């Protein structure tokens, strides 16, 4: 049981962060707070993916002494996994795009209804 906590606690941190974002997305009435929750959610997923790349006693995936010493054998275990880093670079781009479009839509909503509270907007529908 103690081993389980020691080996997996990083995932639990991201799950807690993700649930904070999830609560903000479904529980809050203010639309800006919902978007902040969505960003926390995405950040938790990015942290989770980057943590899967980690190896104990490994360094960044930049090959050391690469120029001029081509005969060196490359130890794979001493470099981090580069793929999650690349994929999360893409995910950060998508995150920024969704944030930008969401904030633009919020500006439009505010111009139309003069409020960002969800329940006040829904009253216009009735």
């Amino acid at each position, binding site marked *: 049981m103690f081993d*389980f906590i020691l*080996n*997996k*606690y*990083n*995932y*639990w941190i991201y*799950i*807690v962060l*993700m*649930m904070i974002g*999830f*609560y903000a997305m*479904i*529980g809050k009435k203010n639309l800006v707070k919902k978007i902040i929750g969505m960003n926390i959610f995405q950040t938790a997923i990015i942290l989770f993916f980057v*943590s*899967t*790349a*980690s*190896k*104990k006693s*490994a360094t960044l*995936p*930049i*090959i*050391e002494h*690469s*120029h001029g010493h*081509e005969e060196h054998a*490359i130890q*794979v*275990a001493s*470099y981090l*996994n*580069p*793929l*999650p*880093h*690349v994929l999360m*670079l*893409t995910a950060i*781009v*998508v995150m*920024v*795009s*969704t944030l*930008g*479009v969401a904030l*633009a*839509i919020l*500006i*439009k909503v505010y111009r139309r209804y003069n409020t960002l509270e969800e329940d006040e907007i829904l009253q216009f529908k009735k």
Partner: protein
Amino acid sequence: MKILILFTVIVTGMILIYGTQDMPDWGDPNSPASTHVSPRYIKKTMDETATPNAVTSVLADYRGYDTLGETTVIFTAGVSCILILRVRKKRKKNS
């Protein structure tokens, strides 16, 4: 209503924590994510792309089309921001 939402969030979190039993340990060099395809990128990055940084070579060389699509995403987001926020000028008649 708040209680229901809090209940949903806590149950989802418990299910996810239950799911971490099957995940590899933190920093395990033999985890599935770092044994299948990533050693090939680390080994071949100097021979094939002459770039010491494996992240750069994967991003811009092996998965260049992915990065091209990424710039398309950014472009689409920018265009849609412009389209959403644009204020149309009313045309003057007789001009």
